[in-house]
């Protein structure tokens, strides 16, 4: 197929071969790790800034404003300027905080996106880790972030932070369940947990269309639960500014605050990327059965572009939620999870299992 020529496997393999021919295996591994680490670091920094800019513009357009316009053309350099400002700010450590935990929390929070991002295939061959339990790994690792949030809330020695941290804990622990279950629904359909396999299986059609009703329900649940898990509106209770001023990161300043901020946006990317991979076929182009010429044209668009187009579509959807809905109350959030999403999910797993068993999907 045409899009195979956008495969990154030859590139990565030639780098690996070139390195291992000249260097010892240990050194090769170290250099490869370093390259990957630096690349991901850069990606997270740049993409985080891009997302912040996108959020500000999207939010502004929803609100009939223009958003940042002053720094650079259309305010493009605004987020970079903000980032420099955050870097230069004084790191204030309040007197009565638990120093060790207070300083540890932002690192735990920022580590999570680094871990999860490693299994995400951006394009054919562009994936750091290809586990056979990739999906499982993502769900397992992403719940580590809540520890950071709880630590930040506890160690800040601030009542608002504590309430924010506790809210966030209750919320994320609940919604982990829905995220996991909706992914399991799709794993039942795919029959594998390996991320690259799941993408490969969608060559003939995205799972959202292949799995029809249960897949659509699972997609809906995943997006809702994913929004909740990233602590974004309407589920932004942990930092509900009209109630708790800034919630768990009230006492943080400078780059430590930036870590929380960046982690939130990268988590947003990861949720969108997971939705893309599991439901919308990852880097697979959009194919419409029977329209061969249309499909060929679609194939000429590189996989990387497809992947980011889908990711941005989902990010836009999540931003749309945030800038439309009022915030839920903490008990309502838990009610939504335990009384609505969880039963729907359980029913949906049954439905999907029946469907797979009877071969009702395409």
């Amino acid at each position, binding site marked *: 197929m045409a899009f195979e020529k956008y495969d990154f496997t030859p590139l990565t393999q030639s780098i690996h071969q070139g390195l291992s021919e000249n260097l010892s295996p240990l050194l090769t591994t170290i250099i490869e790790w370093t390259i990957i680490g630096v690349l991901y670091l850069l990606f997270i920094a740049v993409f985080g800034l891009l997302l912040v800019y996108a959020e500000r513009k999207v939010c502004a357009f929803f609100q009939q404003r223009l958003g940042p316009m002053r720094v650079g053309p259309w305010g493009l350099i605004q987020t970079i300027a903000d980032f420099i400002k955050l870097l230069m700010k004084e790191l204030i450590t309040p007197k009565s905080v638990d120093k060790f935990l207070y300083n540890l929390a932002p690192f735990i929070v920022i580590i999570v996106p680094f871990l999860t991002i490693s299994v995400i295939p951006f394009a054919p061959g562009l994936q750091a880790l290809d586990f056979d339990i990739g999906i499982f790994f993502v769900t397992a690792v992403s719940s580590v972030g809540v520890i950071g949030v709880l630590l930040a809330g506890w160690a800040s020695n601030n009542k608002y932070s504590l309430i924010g941290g506790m809210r966030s804990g209750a919320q994320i622990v609940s919604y982990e369940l829905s995220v996991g279950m909706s992914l399991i629904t799709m794993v039942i359909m795919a029959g594998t947990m390996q991320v690259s396999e799941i993408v490969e299986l969608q060559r003939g059609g995205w799972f959202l269309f292949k799995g029809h009703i249960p897949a659509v329900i699972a997609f809906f649940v995943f997006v809702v639960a994913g929004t909740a898990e990233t602590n974004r509106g309407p589920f932004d209770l942990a930092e509900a500014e009209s109630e708790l001023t800034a919630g768990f990161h009230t006492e943080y300043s400078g780059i430590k605050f930036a870590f929380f901020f960046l982690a939130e946006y990268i988590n947003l990317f990861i949720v969108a990327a997971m939705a893309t991979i599991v439901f919308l076929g990852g880097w697979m182009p959009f194919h419409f059965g029977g329209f061969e010429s249309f499909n060929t044209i679609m194939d000429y668009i590189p996989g990387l572009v497809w992947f980011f187009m889908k990711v941005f579509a989902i990010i836009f959807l999540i931003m*749309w939620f945030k800038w*439309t*809905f009022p915030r839920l109350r903490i008990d309502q959030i838990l009610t939504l999870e335990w009384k609505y999403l969880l039963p729907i999910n359980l029913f949906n797993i049954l439905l999907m299992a029946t469907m797979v068993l009877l071969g009702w999907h395409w």
Partner: protein
Amino acid sequence: MRSFINYIAEIFSGIWTLLTGMKVTAKYFFTPWKHVTQQYPENRDTLVMFERFRGEVIMPHNENNEHKCTGCGICEINCPNGSIEIITKSVVNEEGKKKRIIDQHIYHLAMCTFCNLCVKTCPSDAIVMAQTFEHAHWDRTTMTKVLNQPGSKIMDGVKE
């Protein structure tokens, strides 16, 4: 069974109310030409204030550097905040009579609440409200202004 149907209906009606809300925001998102933002310092040239806008008290002078202020002090009495001070001086006119005229009409912009009472009560319409509104200053002393220009004198024919 009925409660189950209610449960399902509740979910769908709930989602429907959410979608109507999203439709409203989407309508504005996809009509970016309807934005209401004015980019202020850039649009200075086109920005026109309404003619009654109360920005600052000024004393208009004509081309001969003449104003209409008689120095009666009614604006000073009527000002609720003490932002106007009238300093008068005595001069001897041609007929040899002593006459009190305005020396300095001092206006403390920083204390003014733009209530318009001075302009409204001025018997000779000597002071008016200007439409300027960029009153930010680095130094508070620059906000104390003398409204009558140096060397100005009273217009002919203004009733005293």
